[in-house]
């Protein structure tokens, strides 16, 4: 994870609006899903930028729009100087060689009718890299790199487990020797004991090949483990962006604070002390995002007449730390604490636990 500070990808005012149409013959546009609604981001060479948020916040759409898998409505995506959003055809394909994607669902993202060798070798074919023998050698090398026995290259995806399929997906992404990989929830479809294997593999590959990752996930613990910097998204916008340690230890945006406090910790003792801020309500629909700050409908600190009127801009609050909140001024920011009703989930257990007894099952489990 060596960052030399050079910017690899610059995203300026990226917006992706999906039209909602009505009518069968003449499709009139009656509205839009504001999936991504004005994002500015810089991804530095060699870093892992974590992008977190809840489902529907636009994080996956952002990843896809950067790679031009979904064409942005407006905005620019600068990749080493070239604006991808305005490239097409062969010019875009040439750039695509340097950026790849690892998908969430290893069951859906591998073509079940292609052999593993063909899947991993296809990008080489598309980009006309090497002759047949060279490609085959390369595929074997790639499979070995990701921990798949190269002798299985004639097998089909269904013969592999979820974790192995994800390794195959990673090998495919690595085939064209990209600099930049968008990892879209690469481990959320995998089993707990397999996740650590894939995370370790991604980190090892980053060191080996000097890769830059945009790591999209909803699991905040995993993002903390893997990322150098973290951006938090809410309803199509970035609300906070900072160095990993800063974001996790001193989050300033109310949403980030609530989000972090909601993550359960696999330790009952720690759970007893945890006082999660339970946000009321649901994430509003991106079809009609609330006016002003998108988070004001659920924000415990929201100020009437300000937060529900004016859009907060993502601005520097400390060196390297960006946040979009009206209530952050200087060193002052809203401290979101669990309210009276927000007692820890475990609270009442703690009392019962004083008796430290398990009523049943002493002998019950002994087979």
């Amino acid at each position, binding site marked *: 994870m060596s960052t030399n500070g050079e910017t690899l990808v610059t995203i300026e005012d990226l917006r992706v609006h999906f039209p909602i149409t009505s009518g069968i013959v003449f499709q009139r546009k009656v509205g839009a899903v504001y999936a991504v609604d004005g994002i500015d981001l810089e991804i530095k060479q060699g870093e892992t930028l974590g992008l977190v948020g809840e489902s529907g916040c636009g994080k996956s759409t952002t990843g896809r729009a950067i790679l031009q898998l979904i064409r942005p409505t407006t905005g620019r995506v600068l990749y080493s100087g070239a604006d991808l959003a305005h490239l097409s055809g062969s010019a875009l394909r040439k750039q695509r060689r340097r950026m790849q994607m690892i998908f969430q669902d290893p069951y859906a993202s591998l073509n079940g009718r292609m052999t593993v060798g063909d899947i991993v070798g296809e990008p080489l074919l598309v980009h006309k890299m090497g002759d047949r023998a060279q490609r085959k050698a390369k595929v074997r090398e790639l499979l070995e790199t990701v921990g798949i026995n190269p002798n299985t290259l004639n097998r089909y995806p269904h013969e592999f*487990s979820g974790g192995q399929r994800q390794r195959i997906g990673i090998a495919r992404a690595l085939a064209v020797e990209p600099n930049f990989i968008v990892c879209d929830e690469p481990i959320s479809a995998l089993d707990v004991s397999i996740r650590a294997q894939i995370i370790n593999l991604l980190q090892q590959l980053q060191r080996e090949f000097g890769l830059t990752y945009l790591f999209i996930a909803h699991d905040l613990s995993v993002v903390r483990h893997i990322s150098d910097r973290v951006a938090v998204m809410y309803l199509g916008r970035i609300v906070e962006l900072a160095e990993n340690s800063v974001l996790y230890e001193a989050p300033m945006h109310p949403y980030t604070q609530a989000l972090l406090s909601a993550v359960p910790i696999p330790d009952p003792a720690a759970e007893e002390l945890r006082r999660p801020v339970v946000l009321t309500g649901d994430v509003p629909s991106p079809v009609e995002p609330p006016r002003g700050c998108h988070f004001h409908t659920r924000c415990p600190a929201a100020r009437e007449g300000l937060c529900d009127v004016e859009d907060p801009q993502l601005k520097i609050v400390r060196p390297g730390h960006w946040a979009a909140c009206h209530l952050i001024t200087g060193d002052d920011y809203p401290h979101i604490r669990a309210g009276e009703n927000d007692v820890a989930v475990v609270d009442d257990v703690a009392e019962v636990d004083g008796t430290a007894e398990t009523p049943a099952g002493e002998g019950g489990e002994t087979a």
Partner: protein
Amino acid sequence: MGAEQDTLLRLTDLTVDFASQEGTVHAVNKVSFEVAPGELVGLVGESGCGKSVTASAILGLTRMINNATIGGSIEFLGRDLLALPENEVRQVRGRDISMIFQDPVTSLNPVLSIERLMTEGLELHLGLSHSDAVKRAIELLGEVGIPKAAGRIKDYPHQFSGGMRQRVMIAIALSCNPKLLLADEPTTALDVTIQAQILRLMKQLSQAHNAAVIVITHDLGVVAGMCRRILVMYAGRIVEAGPAKELFHHPHHPYTVGLLRSVPRLDEPRKDTLQSIEGLPPDLAHLPPGCSFAPRCWLADEECWQSPPELFVTDPGRTTACYHREALIAGAEMPA
């Protein structure tokens, strides 16, 4: 064994096998445990470990699967559910034992209104008239935190968000005052801020209704805050069981150790690499002759490959299926 009134549910050597082309799949392999009235139990394991099949068996759903062979017994309030005829099981299912499914999107029938979904059980099991059932349904929806429930009862599931649908599901599950609630990955499909709401709700309601809950999940964080007792399953067997606090603090089975070590935690310093359990879970049709975890275990030796370990009692209320439990009790750490 506790006295009869102390035990709500007692599984003894529950075995569920499925016939398949690959051979017999041993989905659940001699699983025994008890649940006391009102108790919150966590059943933890990865996909394919048999945790959901165990739940299906308790609900009497496995008997409907043609290629399933079921052995052992499931005593619920002293009656063996496996020995009851279907019409009597139907009296229990949905009334005394109910279930919250993982995915609120697919498990609520989209062509039925919330009113219909909610009143079906109330009319069938409690014999309420339709208007009484509707009244009760509105109360229940209010209890699970659906605002303006009376105005929303005619709505259909697609008009609710994921978190709200899961609340509806909880309301349906609680509608007949069940004594046992099976929650199969109740928050896996939900976002973290919604998950916190739902977990708190489930816990409050289980106390208010004095219902025991078995939370089935792969997420150790979910059960850590909610359950007092944890059962860890691997490849169809319970490999470790005990009070949550002790089990999380000092696991006595190498698989539990591996699970806990391989998950990054927000309250701990960042590590360079995660410890991981190498390899894959075994094929349930071709289980190794010895301990199912032996091929992935750092403590495995000759003995482990010979015959599967039974559950040994290590502490009061704690059991583990490991020949090397002494080493773990003494504090043997997983190699990095």
